[in-house]
Structure formats: structure tokens, C-alpha cells
């Protein structure tokens, strides 16, 4: 125990997987598009195929940005929890080793914000 305390100091994490009713939390961030001010948090079933994230989930999050429609998904590069990552589109989140509170960052080459300004 590292915390200085007057007695026993043990509590379970408040964000454990079992609290999310069958979903897991996954964080996403579209790099070089800081008009979306921060990374996003989404509750998703671990059985969801990765392809569905691209077709059904992320458009509702980022679709208002003019760059979104121009993304060539074949060129997108991904990082999963600080490691380079190549998603298997038809495999589920779990089979892609995307766990509870995993962070997925993605870069869209050629699309670096409005007028090439990565903070837009």
C-alpha cells in the first residue's frame, strides 16, 4: 500500500468492466482534428466487429467534419494503447485485442485538419 492511511485502505476500482452492463469502454481519437477537443469515450459490446465501428459508430461522432467523408480507410494508420495496430475488420473488438479502456488513435494521411491546420 502506497497511500498513507490511518487504517486499511482498499477499494475496488469504480470503473471495472462488470459495471458497464456488458459493454466495455473504448476511447478514440482522430489525430490532427482538434476541433473535437478531446479523446472520445464510447461504451461498446466486445463482440462488435471492428468494421461496424467504422461504418456505424464513428460517423456519428466525427461525421460533421468535412474531412470525414474524404477518408481513405485503406491508408489510415492506427495505434492501440501506444502500439502500432492493424485492425482485422471482420474480427470483434475482443479478437482485435481491444480491451476495456483501450485507447485507439488514428491518423488520416493527407487529411490534416481544415486547410491543413491540425487544430481544426
Amino acid at each position, binding site marked *: *500500500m*502506497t*497511500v*498513507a*492511511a*490511518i487504517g486499511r*485502505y*482498499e*477499494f*475496488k*476500482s*469504480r*470503473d*471495472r468492466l462488470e*459495471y*458497464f*452492463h456488458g*459493454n466495455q*469502454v473504448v*476511447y478514440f*481519437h482522430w*489525430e*490532427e482534428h*482538434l*476541433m*473535437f*477537443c*478531446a*479523446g*472520445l*469515450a*464510447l*461504451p461498446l459490446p466486445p463482440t462488435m466487429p471492428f468494421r461496424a465501428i467504422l461504418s456505424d459508430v464513428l460517423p*456519428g*461522432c466525427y461525421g*460533421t467534419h468535412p474531412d470525414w467523408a474524404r477518408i481513405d480507410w485503406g491508408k489510415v494508420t492506427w495505434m492501440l*494503447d*501506444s502500439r502500432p495496430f492493424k485492425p482485422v475488420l471482420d474480427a470483434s473488438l475482443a479478437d482485435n485485442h481491444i*480491451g*476495456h*479502456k*483501450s*485507447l485507439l*488513435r488514428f491518423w488520416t494521411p493527407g487529411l490534416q485538419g*481544415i*486547410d491543413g*491546420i*491540425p*487544430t*481544426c
Partner: protein
Amino acid sequence: MNAMPPLQKQRKLSLKERYAHLTRGLGWETTYQPMDKVFPYISYEGIKIHDWDAWEDPFRLTMDAYWKYQAEKERKLYAVIESFAQNNGHLNVTDARYINALKLFLTGVSPLEYSAHRGYAHVGRHFVGAGPRIACQMQAIDELRHAQTQIHTMSHYNKFFDGLHDARHMHDRVWYLSVPKSFFEDACSAGPFEFLTAISFSFEYVLTNLLFVPFMSGAAYNGDMATVTFGFSAQSDEARHMTLGLEIIKFMLEQDEGNVPIVQKWIDKWFWRGYRLLGLVSMMMDYMLPKRIMSWAEAWEMYFEQAGDALFEDLSRYGIRKPKYHEVASKEKHRLSHEVWSIFYNYTHAAAFHTWLPSEEEMKWLSAKYPDTFDKHYRPRFKCWSEMQAEGKRFYNPTLPQLCVTCQIPMGFTEPDDPTTICFRSTEYKGERFHFCSDGCKDIFCDEPEKYVQSWLPVHQIYQGNCGGAEVKDVLAWYHLNFGVDNFDYEGSPDQKLWDEWQAQKASNAV
């Protein structure tokens, strides 16, 4: 016959003597119970105190003097509040947008004053020495008074503007208010010495000017005389609180060399937590005050870089250095307010106050104050949002943000050396991932993970079903926010509509 003894006029006690009488016997040694049972919180943090009497209270304020001064201040304050109300003082502020700073203050800061009252009352009970105990008790009363007078001062605005109706309830529930709430609960759930290092020293001594100068000078610049008067009323208390902050640090450092590394660790932690909390103030200074006092960067330079240099030079003879990551805070000074305002612009639909795009004139001011960052990184973003707004598609972020587990702010801060890339940090603890906005927040977690795995992160709580429902409307109802009234852009809000009507009325009466 014996002569009558001459009548002696009783000598008045000096302040020092009166203070000695006030504190006499309060630092008692227990007889039928062991001291550590009566004062259980005094040793477990590792701080060693050899001589409690070495505590010197520079103010030596006695109770009779305290009541007298405070009563005088109250009388003046309430007279001003009364006249402000009778003269419809709210019509004299610069612009109704200013009221949003008050909404933030009332929901974010006033409940902290109440928490401070509880914290100091607790610590006052648990210190062994009479001097610090009295100082803490007086501060506990001050803090309670501050919470109360702030609520009274701002209640006038509640009659005319939205979002000021349920500050206490909102403080416990609204997503961004978990930032100040968790800051204070972290301090209150620490031991007494860490509490004083956190609140009295790091916040009230090192960072206080960055809170009160913007708020009270901001009130003065923007015609809010009731809030200015509250500021004056609290000012003399603050001077005493700052003295307590410095005194407790020096006291700990002088008592035992072993205390130095413990105190340094706390200074590092509480500097960073306090600095992150002040992000809210940075956006108030640069974006929310219609008439601005100074920029966040200027305030940071004056009140932290310059004043902090002198303070930490003074403390260096004890072996204390400047807080860890102070240089990161200085690197961030040219973008902090823009990043925080962007977060609120993204999520105004879930906030208890309005946001807006800066006008062209305001952007000119921002360009001048931030010549290296504003035009390059932030003006284009505002231009883009402005075009969307003109098309009737005001930009709101439709997805909830990822939050930092320590400071609980959305993960919107960029790398210290790269304003275009968000700073993501993470660690694993007992097989679970935790994410942070900065090295400062990550270090704080890693030092005491047991504490922060309990963080009540609003986004996760919504997803767990603990916040009234899954839809924004349900969550806002649970916050006690009036949907479509308290939230969304200032443009088109009931506040704006009413303000414009009053201004038109003023103009027509004048003719």
C-alpha cells in the same frame, strides 16, 4: 486608622497577552487516554513535530477582535448588496455574457468554500498545538462565512438570469464540477498536514492570486459592484489564510529534516492539481469577461513565475525546490485558455452556463496577447465554427469525452512541446488501464493508485447508468439543469433575449 489602598485602574491586556489567554490550556496533555488515541491523525503521514509551541501565529487575533472586525465587514457588505438590489445593479454590468463567469463561480467555487470550512474544522480538532488549532478554527469560520456571503451576493442575479438556481446540487453531479469537487475531496480525505499543504499553502498561498484577481478585478471591470464588495470583505481573511499557509510549511520544515521530502512531494502534487483546476479561470480571463483585465499568460507570469521564483528561493534554504512540472505549466500558458474554452464550446449543451465565439474585436485582443499561438492554431478553428454556426449548424460534440482519471478534465491538453497533438498518458494498475492528461496527473496517480481508482468520472458514471438515464436530456434533468434554457450557446439563449430587451428599453427611455 489604616488608609484605604489606592484604587488601581485595571491594566488593559496587550494583544499578545489576550492571545495567550485565548489559547491557554487548549494544547492539553491527556491523562486518562493516550495522546495518539485522542489525536489519531497526527502521526500517520510521517510528519514529525517536536515542539508544537514553536508555532507562532503572526496575527494573534483574539475572538473579541475577530467578531468585531467580521461584524463590521458583514454590515458593509449587506448594505452594498441591498443597494445593488434596489438600484437594479444587474443592469449595469458590461454584458450578460459576464454573468456566466458568476455561474461558474457559484457552482464551482462557493461549494469549495463550504468544503474548506469542514476541512479546517476537522484539522483544527486534530492538531495538538493550540496556535495552529486556533488559526484553523478561525479559518473554518471564515470559509463558512465566505460560502454564505457569496451565495447572498450572487442571489440577486438568480432573479434575472438562468443557471444560478441550484449550485449545491449541481456541484455534486454536473460533469465539469467533478473537477473542483474531486480536487477538494482529495485534500479533505488526506491527513491534516497534507490538507494544509494542499489548501493553505499550494492553493491559498501560491495560486490564490490567480483565482481572486481575475474574479474580483473582473467583477470591478465589468460593473458587478456586489461581487467586488464581497471580494473586499473576504480580502482581509485571505491575508490571514495566506499567512497560515506559509506558517504551516515553515513549521513542518523547521521541526524535522525528515519532513522535507514529504512536504516536497505534497507541494509537487498540489501545485499540479491546483494548476489544472485553474484552467477554468484561464478561460474566464481570456474569453468570458467582456472587459478583460489581463491575459492568462500575463497573470501566470506575474503571479506564478515572478512571485513563485521569490517564494521558492526563500524556501530553498530548507531544501525545497520549485514544484515539479512548473515548466510545463509555463509552456502551456499560451494555449491553456484556448484549449479549455474549446472543451466548453464542444460541450455547452451539457453545461450550466453559455459559451460563444469571440467577436472579431475580441480575437484581435487574443492575437495581440498570444502572438505565437492564437492566429496559427485557434483563430482558424473559430472561423470554422463560425461558418458552421452561420449555416445553422452550431458545432456540439455529440460524443462524451475521455477524462483524465486524476484531474477529471476531458483529455484535451496538448503535448508540452507540440500544441497540435493531444497528450495521452496511461498506466496499468492491478491489470486495469488508467489514462491521464499529463505527466503531472500520471505521477499523482502512480504515487497513490489506491486513492484514484475510486475517481467518480462523470462520463463513466453516465455509461454505468448512474446519472438519470442515457439521453442528454435525462442526465441534465438529473443535474437539475433546465434544458434549452441554462445550456447551449449564448446566442439565442433566454439570457441574451432578456438582456437585449433591457438594453433596448434603456435606449428608448433615454430619448
